[in-house]
């Protein structure tokens, strides 16, 4: 039985040697620029949301490419780019046990409590 809840994984669970760009610094056989994940805030007041990824040599180029690739129709007012190798994710195989504790605490939800109608909106 595996008990490690969180493991260090690259986005997409891609092994490092195949991650397409993460090895640029080593000048290995893989010459792709690093992979970046792109997040867009569609308008002021909303969160940044992941929209996809792209390759770029550095952060400035990643922002410029993200503008061209992901915001050709005014999709956003703000961009974040994060190099994919810096994103750590929870293990999909462990999702059941990882999120299970949230499911059995129904008393965390307001609908758990039955109050008299006279209380009104609460």
């Amino acid at each position: 039985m595996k008990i490690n809840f969180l493991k260090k994984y690259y986005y997409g669970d891609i092994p490092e040697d195949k991650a397409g760009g993460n090895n640029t610094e080593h000048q290995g056989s893989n010459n792709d620029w690093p992979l970046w994940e792109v997040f867009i805030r569609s308008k002021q007041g909303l969160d940044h949301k992941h929209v996809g990824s792209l390759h770029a040599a550095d952060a400035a180029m990643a922002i410029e490419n993200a503008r061209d690739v992901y915001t050709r129709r005014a999709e956003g007012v703000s961009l974040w780019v994060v190099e994919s190798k810096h994103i750590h994710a929870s293990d999909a195989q462990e999702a059941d046990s990882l999120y299970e504790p949230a499911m059995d605490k129904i008393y965390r939800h307001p609908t758990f409590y039955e109050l008299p109608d006279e209380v009104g909106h609460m």
Partner: protein
Amino acid sequence: MENVEQKFQDSVNAEIKIEPRNWMPEAYRKTLIRQISQHAHSEIVGMLPEGAWITRAPSLKRKAILLAKVQDEAGHGLYLYSAAETLGQSREQMINDLHSGKAKYSSIFNYPTKSWADIGAIGWLVDGAAILNQVMLCRTSYGPYARAMVRICKEESFHQRQGFDILLTLANGTPEQKIMCQDAINRWWWPSLMMFGPKDSESSNSDQSMKWKIKRKSNDELRQNFVDMCVQQVKVLGMNLPDPDLKWNEAKQQHDWGEIDWNEFWQVVKGNGPCNKERLEARRNAWDNGAWVREAAAAHAQKQKDKQKQQAA
């Protein structure tokens, strides 16, 4: 192991999207890499026939529109490459496979664009056929692919409408323009029907792809939708579809059409179409001629990084 595979199929059946880090059968991964990278290559190679007319567009308005459309195709290619990369395929590998001829792209782009009307016909017919396929793929079982398709479909309808708009303008123009319009339709009609791929009775991949919900409609179903749709639209243009056997089938409540030249289809797939060599050569040249840009950008990024390190030290 069987248990994991059954769990995977159950998720697919329950319409739960498969995400990159979920377990998936190796064949599912391979099928998707092949299909998504092919799709990406088609967007990229698809820029070439249209790009040929950017400098020759008949007005500044048409030129600006065509530029925007070709830029969209580049964007679509990039969405799809990044979706394929989530399956563990590197970008470089995909590009290499395209350039070596190992990976295929849609054969439609191996036909030449001889007149301005061809740009209209591509928008109406080629993008029209692609949209039917892509609308279906918005519901494909693999999450990153489905999300890329949603984004693409949002942008694609502009492509089809601008194409129809070009043809409509020609159809209402001078006698020469009308001839040009009909000629483009004549040349693009059959290759467009071929875009949906071999008949269901001869397609080996369709069944498994349907079971995995990668595809949701068969080649023949999509082709039928396309024909029925175009028969209506060509009337608006006042033009004809070049098929004497095309007629309404009252019993089926669908159109019947003539036999596709499958020999031509396989010839073009195998590399013997009118422009196969030219297209691949253009891609390879673009890649080779861009090498210094890639190297310079990487060198610059490294230099900046070193500078930062020095400052921190």
